[in-house]
């Protein structure tokens, strides 16, 4: 299974390593034509402003919009911001693949970054495995609202931190920086089913 990781800027190597460990063939994606050769795409953590500028400059915006209409995408942190329909603090363009509103840097600055353990929703454990999940939040966004049709798979208190709509997944935390492989397994499942 060939899975791309958008590799313009961010912690794309950590995602590639995780996907390879799980038996997928990870491809670093920097050009539009590469999107035709992969079954799914990860939008990694990083700076969403930097990624937006490079996507624009390198004319990746349209190929990416086409891709989200066809194949599964997993966005983490900055990647989740790129997948959202509405972005605030400040407002910026996004791919709109998931019907949610997301607020950038919503916990605050790095001083407010944290590692927390959450108890997964039942649907998440049914589709993967049970047990608490360690979530790494780094200058993370908060999902402020989701439309009906968006499933919340993980919560931290009242806030959704992993959501699913159709073929796409968005997480506000960095699963790629822990040893828990469940999020990437869930994503590869979806890629396998197309």
């Amino acid at each position, binding site marked *: 299974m060939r899975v791309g990781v958008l*590799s*313009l*800027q*961010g*912690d*794309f*190597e*950590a995602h590639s390593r995780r996907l390879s460990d799980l038996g997928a063939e990870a491809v670093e994606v*920097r050009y539009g034509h590469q999107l035709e050769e992969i079954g799914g795409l990860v939008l990694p*953590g*990083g*700076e969403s*402003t*930097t990624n937006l*500028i*490079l996507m624009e*400059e390198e004319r990746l915006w349209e190929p990416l919009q086409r891709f989200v209409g066809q194949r599964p995408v997993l966005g983490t*942190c*900055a990647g989740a911001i790129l997948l959202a329909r509405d972005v605030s*603090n*400040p407002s910026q363009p996004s791919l709109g693949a998931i019907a949610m509103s997301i607020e*950038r*840097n919503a916990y*605050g*600055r*790095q*001083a407010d*970054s*944290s*590692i927390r353990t959450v108890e997964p929703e039942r649907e998440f454990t049914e589709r993967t495995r049970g047990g608490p999940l360690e979530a*790494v939040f*780094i*200058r993370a966004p908060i999902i402020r609202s989701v439309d009906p049709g968006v499933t919340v798979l993980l919560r931290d208190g009242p806030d959704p931190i992993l959501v699913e709509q159709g073929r796409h997944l968005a997480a506000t935390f*960095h699963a790629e*920086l822990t040893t828990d492989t469940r999020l990437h397994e869930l994503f590869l499942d979806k890629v396998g089913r197309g």
Partner: protein
Amino acid sequence: MFLDNDFRLKAGLAEQLKGGVIMDVTDADQARIAQDAGAVAVMALERVPADIRKDGGVARMASIRKIRDIMATVSIPVMAKARIGHFAEAMVLQALKVDYIDESEVLTPADEEHHIDKRAFPTPFVCGARNLGEALRRIAEGAAMIRTKGEAGSGDVVEAVRHMRAIREQIRQLTVTERNALSTCAKNLQAPLELVEWVAKEGRLPVPNFSAGGIATPADASLVMSLGAEAVFVGSGIFKSEDPSRRAKAIVKATTFFSDPDKLLEACEDLGEPMQGLDVSKLDESELLQTRGW
């Protein structure tokens, strides 16, 4: 163990900056230009290194008002510099909630023997290094990101290259050293055995390894990335050039596409004049910034 949760969070932010460009800025306008050009973070300081060299005098932490202005202007992470060993400046920067503190040889050192005990701070630190031993000593003190020192404010990339090659080669040597000889390596590197063993096993530093000190062109950025840098710091190179916005964008592009000759060519077109630059080999020993700290 040094890889506790506190350390993971600090190095985790550095992970997010990989493949990006961190730009020195001296006011809010420059910070906005940097963000609009695609910087992943800005470094707030009073004067860029080239001016610190020119003006002389004591170089200290930037003014609070300036750092606040910059923090209020951009949404990307803001870093600021403290003098080597000046833990009180670091306390101020932490209270100000900057995202990263650079214990930097660019400022006038406050302590010639002791670096800051960075483990005591929740705020992550980046430190400069010229070789593996220096990098591991800083990590042992709690640095969560290493950057080559290079020679700041020179516009001459030769020292950044020397330091990146040195660190990479010393790491490579450790990976082929027998376990029972690592204690001697630790002695020679003047670094803790625990860290030396970790590097020998993993073949990399336990924290991201960025490049700094003399990067002035897109080609310079491509060069250091090709030598193994995971991101680049650009100090005087942008705002001492003729067209900072264009040059900043070009360096961002060259950092992402560092191994693509066509993209690199695009990045190098129509840039205007670079910063003037100083040939480091012609500098007097006493003018070097990289020899500050140990």
